[in-house]
């Protein structure tokens, strides 16, 4: 037992260190944060530019003519903005066309039914926006003057803020603040599977492709090897997630305003123990099932290339539940949602979604968790069995039935 533990530690250390030392791993891991930093830099530059541009457009000073059939526009306000009234729209348009006038705004009789026509001398795609901005500002300011009340103006323009509160079982319902924390388990599941699945598949194929299996199988127990690989991959995944999140965290802490990132107030999040515990167990069960399946594929297939043909459809199973996203949330009793909830390869994503949106009952959650953990454990056992008997079938695809015939005969 002591040697088995010693060997488990040795396998974990060997697999972890050799993975993170690979150039490909460093490139793949650093590429995403570097890309994020680049995107943030571009967003930062764009935001500065957009802000300057918006301010410039808003405060743009230029001369224009206007015609107002609606009677909303107030002449004094228009004059301050640089406007001159004209009775002859056709001439005003022609003046803009031949460059003798900078802009002309034609306000219709009923702006709620017809558009305000804006004509201007071309100043480039971005600067042209100033004409509409001034025409709109002039209309709003004139209307506000008529209404005579900032409150009514706010109500009419839809700039009023709303703060909803709903109740469930006599207590305030968590709302979106309660969805986000358990939803994070789904995010972690996706990230870990996307980052690690290919490595899981290849980690067992490597022994086979390099003809290391017999040396390994006579040196340590295959269960120890597989367990060690899974633990090391999980550790590798954590390293990757931390590296990926580092620039996001730094950006949020130091450049939130510049990058126009939304304010994340933890006080608005609701951390309910039930959904969080269920989320964690569903994540564990889902990870176990997918890991077992990937290791089993690696044991059956002779090369990474051939394993790839099964790998694609398996990964698709993780995304299929999203096709029924609206039904998962609004109609959890639907047959398709029920099938996805209990089929082991679609269950993790479907159940995690339903758990986050509060449509997974405790009984259903219990059944899915037990199912995932039991199926996952069985698949990992099968994966170890297939590795033991499949990994020495060098260059050949393994007959799963064949491995069991051997075991059955041996058991007699």
């Amino acid at each position, binding site marked *: 037992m002591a*040697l088995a533990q010693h060997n488990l530690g040795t396998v974990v250390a060997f697999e972890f260190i050799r993975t993170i030392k690979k150039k490909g791993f460093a490139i793949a891991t650093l590429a995403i944060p570097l890309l994020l930093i680049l995107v943030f830099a571009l967003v930062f530059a764009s935001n500065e530019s957009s802000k300057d541009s918006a301010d410039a457009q808003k405060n743009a000073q230029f001369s224009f003519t206007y015609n107002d059939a609606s009677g909303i526009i107030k002449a004094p306000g228009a004059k301050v903005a640089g406007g001159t009234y004209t009775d002859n729209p056709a001439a005003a348009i022609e003046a803009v066309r031949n460059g003798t006038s900078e802009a002309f705004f034609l306000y219709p009789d009923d702006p709620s039914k017809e558009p305000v026509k804006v004509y201007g001398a071309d100043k480039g795609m971005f600067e042209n926006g100033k004409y509409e901005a001034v025409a709109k500002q002039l209309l709003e300011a004139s209307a506000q003057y008529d209404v005579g009340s900032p409150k009514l103006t706010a109500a009419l323009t839809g700039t009023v803020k709303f703060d909803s509160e709903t109740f469930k079982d006599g207590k305030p319902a968590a709302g979106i603040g309660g969805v986000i924390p358990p939803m994070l388990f789904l995010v972690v599941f996706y990230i870990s599977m996307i980052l690690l699945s290919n490595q899981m598949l290849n980690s067992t194929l490597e022994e086979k492709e390099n003809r*290391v299996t017999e040396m390994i199988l006579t040196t*340590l*127990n295959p269960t120890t090897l597989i367990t060690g690989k899974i633990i090391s991959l999980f550790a590798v995944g954590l390293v990757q997630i931390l590296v990926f999140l580092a620039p996001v965290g730094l950006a949020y802490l130091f450049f939130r305003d510049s990058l126009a990132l939304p304010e994340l107030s933890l006080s608005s999040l609701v951390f309910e123990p039930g959904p969080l515990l269920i989320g964690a167990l569903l994540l564990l069960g889902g990870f176990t099932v997918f890991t077992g399946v990937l290791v089993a594929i690696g044991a059956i297939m002779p090369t990474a290339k051939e394993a790839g043909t099964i790998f694609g459809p398996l990964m698709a199973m993780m995304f299929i539940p999203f096709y029924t996203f609206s039904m998962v949330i609004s109609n959890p009793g639907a047959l398709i949602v029920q099938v996805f909830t209990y089929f082991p390869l679609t269950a993790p994503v479907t159940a995690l979604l339903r758990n986050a949106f509060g449509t997974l009952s405790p009984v259903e959650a219990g059944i899915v968790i037990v199912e995932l953990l039991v199926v996952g454990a069985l698949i990992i056992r099968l994966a170890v069995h297939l590795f033991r008997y499949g990994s020495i079938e060098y260059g050949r695809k393994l007959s799963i039935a064949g491995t069991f015939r051997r075991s059955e005969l041996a058991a007699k």
Partner: protein
Amino acid sequence: MTLGDAAEPLVHIKDFRMDFGDTTVIRDLSFDVHAGETFGFLGSNGSGKTTTLRALLGIYQPTAGTLHIGGKVFEPRDGARLGYLPEERGLYKKEPVLDVMVYFGRLKGLSKAAARSWSEQYLERVGIPEKAKTRLDKLSGGQQQKVQLGVTIMNNPELLILDEPTKGFDPVNRRLLMDIIEEHKRAGATVIMVTHQMEEVERLCDRVILLKDGVSRAYGTVEEVQEEFGGTVYRVAYDGVLPASDLYEVISASEGRAELAPGQGASEEKVLRELVEAGVSLRSFTPARISLDEIFIKVYGEQHELAEAK
């Protein structure tokens, strides 16, 4: 951990049978290997040697029978000092030599420092100390063989199991391998060796077993097996033509040299007299034991030779 009781056979195989589907590969195979001896495991390709070793080491589940090392079924977690060089061999090719050696050393129960120190000394001994930090796939085939051999003999194994150890080895590494086997033999290790090199078997092995189609065809000391398959032969160098005779059978003859197997009731004197009286001019006449090569050919026959040649 030591491998069992010295009074008992170190390796004990009894009534071993192995089926793959409907095909029986090994049937009722029984033999023992005693501590400290070098044991030759002989047979043509497909005769069941590798299957037997894999079943002995727990890689295959036997269909029936007992396969014990040190009195029990082999389990890697027992930490037995065992070195196995499989027929299908390889290591983690994209890793540095020293990392791979230290990894296997650790798995065999050595401390990290001990595994590192042993590995460095071994690489020094086999003349590639500068390759310690080189990836395995950047080494030549011969250098990779040296590393593979090093991994096999780490932790000073009590039992060395070598499946066609010289397969693919160049002459330099073959010599190195033989030296290492002899060293371990002198140090008291037990060696089981699958090989087609009969001269190596005659030189190194105390006892042998010869397998054909999964069945033992000969088992015992080299001398006992030679005796069983005809014992003595006469090697002659001559001029002229060898006459046919009831006193001997010509096993082989070419370019004035021949090997004669004595017939029923024939003695050295009678055969010699027969040749002289027939007018054969003898340059030498030497009684010798039949070689394992000849026994192998006898067991597998001309058909096997032709098949191998193809």
